């Protein structure tokens, strides 16, 4: 029989991933590895702090882990001097949309021609599931045990805010909530790199990623929660495509 699906041994080396069961971050790594294998030259990666930093050992290319939230500007500085390289920043929602929101916003405004993959699981997961900018209203976290209420502010539609800026060449939100969602994520990442290669501006893929551990659900419920709740607040789809490049 013929092999029709095979995980990347390179990505999994040496002992597999350290994410929790059902965490979407492994799916992102596998998709990214797949996409990178089809590129002429590997991108360089800058990884934020958070659960994303468990990705560093498995990235399909050279990787630098930098301070929390500022990965976009770190990557921009590198790209300014190495416009010939594909540069990819990997950030969580806490870093990209919370702590580093200023830098993220102005990276978009400047249209830095890098690709940012934002893994949005709606909590500060690495530190134990605290309130994040993206947490849905009503959702219980370890710092909002009775649920996110009005005094904690409303969920921030950060990608929609960035999409208003002319510097963003491509922005797509995808969801790890089904096999189809995972395939769309892989395609979106591929598209983002293609647009970056054309030098059009900032490319962003936001991935709604399940965090069963801190959402206090089983893994299948976490997918349902994305489909039924998260993606109604953060709708999936292409928000910006100023690339002019073919799909």
């Amino acid at each position, binding site marked *: *029989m*013929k*092999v*029709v*699906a*095979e*995980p*990347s041994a390179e*990505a*999994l080396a040496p*002992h*597999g*991933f350290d*994410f*929790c*069961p*059902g*965490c*979407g*971050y*492994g*799916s992102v790594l*596998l998709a990214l590895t797949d996409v990178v294998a089809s590129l002429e030259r590997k991108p360089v990666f800058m990884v934020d702090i958070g659960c994303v930093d468990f990705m560093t050992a498995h990235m399909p290319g050279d990787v630098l882990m930098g301070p929390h939230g500022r990965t976009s500007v770190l990557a921009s500085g590198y790209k300014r001097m190495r416009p010939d390289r594909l540069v990819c920043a990997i950030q969580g929602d806490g870093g990209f949309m919370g702590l580093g929101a200023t830098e993220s916003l102005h990276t978009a405004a400047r249209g830095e021609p890098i690709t940012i993959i934002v893994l949005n699981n709606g909590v500060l997961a690495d530190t134990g599931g605290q309130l994040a900018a993206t947490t849905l209203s009503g959702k219980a976290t370890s710092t909002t045990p009775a649920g996110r209420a009005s005094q904690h502010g409303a969920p921030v539609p950060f990608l929609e805010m960035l999409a208003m800026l002319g510097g963003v060449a491509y922005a797509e939100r995808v969801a790890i909530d*089904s*096999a189809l969602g*995972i*395939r769309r994520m892989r395609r979106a990442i591929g598209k983002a790199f293609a647009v970056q290669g054309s030098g059009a501006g900032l490319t962003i893929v936001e991935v709604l990623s399940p965090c*069963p551990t801190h959402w206090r659900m*089983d*893994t*299948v419920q976490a*997918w349902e929660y994305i489909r039924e709740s998260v993606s109604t607040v953060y709708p999936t789809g292409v928000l910006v495509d100023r690339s002019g490049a073919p799909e």
Partner: protein
Amino acid sequence: MTKTTGTVDIAEQLCKGCDLCVDVCPEHVLAMTDRLNTKGWLVVALVADGCTGCTLCADVCPDGVFTVYREERQPTGARR
């Protein structure tokens, strides 16, 4: 009606027993076992005939557990 046949290899050491594959498998041929791997996670197993090699389990598995095999579709007139 002909049906494609397939099978899967399961890298038990990578499995965390998250159950997503069991949920998506359209043929219901995967199930959680009560075995633990050396990391302490329950592992999944192929427990019945009927795998079609559709790759949904591999698509959804966040830990790269599955290698999927499928019998080549034969030209008209082939067996089955």
